[in-house]
């Protein structure tokens, strides 16, 4: 990894992290602009495949930046991209957490928190919808998504069962 690429990763993902409100999936369009359009590090198809791979792995969705970093700088690129994307905002979150501890119990804060809850849940649902659209390459994956939705919503079994089921259906039918 050259010094140029290192700084492009640091500044590019660092900047994205500061405007990212929400989870890793919400910032994908910005990431696409950086790695495909601005720097030409990979094609559209590469981008889509790397994203699918990250989705298939456990961990925070934002770790997809690690795969983009890996593509341009191996393991050092992976670590650089992940740290650029997480460190600045982590310090902010920590500061805010401290502030919140001091303000704990204040009514207006509880009202603000309570008001934000439905937005968070709505955005989780939106992420699911976007993921489902990305996975829907035919009627079989759509059926798997629908079955998985019902399984997780209506039962208390570990979701790992339905993920294993999805992988088996994929191996046999896709």
């Amino acid at each position, binding site marked *: 990894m050259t010094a140029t690429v290192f700084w492009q990763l640091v500044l590019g993902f660092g900047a994205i992290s500061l405007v990212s409100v929400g989870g890793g999936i919400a910032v994908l369009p910005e990431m696409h602009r950086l790695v495909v359009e601005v720097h030409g590090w990979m094609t559209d198809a590469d981008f889509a495949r790397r994203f699918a791979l990250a989705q298939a792995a456990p*961990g925070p969705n934002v770790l997809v930046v*690690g795969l983009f970093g890996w593509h341009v700088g191996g393991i050092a690129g992976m670590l650089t991209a992940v740290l650029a994307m997480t460190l600045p905002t982590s310090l902010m979150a*920590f500061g805010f957490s401290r502030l919140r501890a001091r303000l704990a119990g204040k009514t207006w804060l509880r009202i603000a*928190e309570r008001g934000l*809850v439905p937005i*968070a849940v709505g*955005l989780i649902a939106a992420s699911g919808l976007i993921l489902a659209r990305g996975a829907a390459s035919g009627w079989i994956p759509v059926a798997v998504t629908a079955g998985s939705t019902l399984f997780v919503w209506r039962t*208390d079994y570990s979701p790992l069962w339905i993920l294993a089921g999805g992988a088996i259906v994929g191996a046999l039918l*896709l």
Partner: protein
Amino acid sequence: MSETDTPRPVPTLLDLFLTYGKIGLIGFGGINAWARRVLVEEKRWLTDQEYAETLGLGQVLPGPNALNAAIMVGDRFHGTAGAIAAPGAMFGGPLVLLAGLATFYDAYGEVPIVKAILAGLAAAAAGMVIGTAAKMTQKLKPPPALLAVGLIALVAAGVFRVPLPWVVLGLAPFGILAARHVMRAK
């Protein structure tokens, strides 16, 4: 906060590290669904409401909400050490795994069976995220105004792909007003 009769267990620093390590490694389809399941249902360190509120704050601050929530949960139980241990464990395991996967993908990504398994897994993970949102909604039982705010967030971000800062900053005043109304009415 006085909603249960049984006292909630308080994790040790090691508990926090191991549990977040586990959440990271089983966290298919994103962390939030699993964090809720483990922290609220299995460990009972937080109530549904507390978890959702923490996630709501993590959502509004810049940066990945799962990471912000992990920092705040870690800080809540063990201060600075917790704020490092929880997200460190949550990212560390998956990163090692992802490095292995990237290596594997560079070598075998074009093999048909690998592609097929990934496709099935991605479809199931998508359903899991949707199912979790449905489950959270059912458990939180939001009054109509707050439910509407959530649905607008879903449609704006999921269907119209409105940039996230607009969704959050645009809806936050309405969510807060609705919450104020609901809490006053009690």
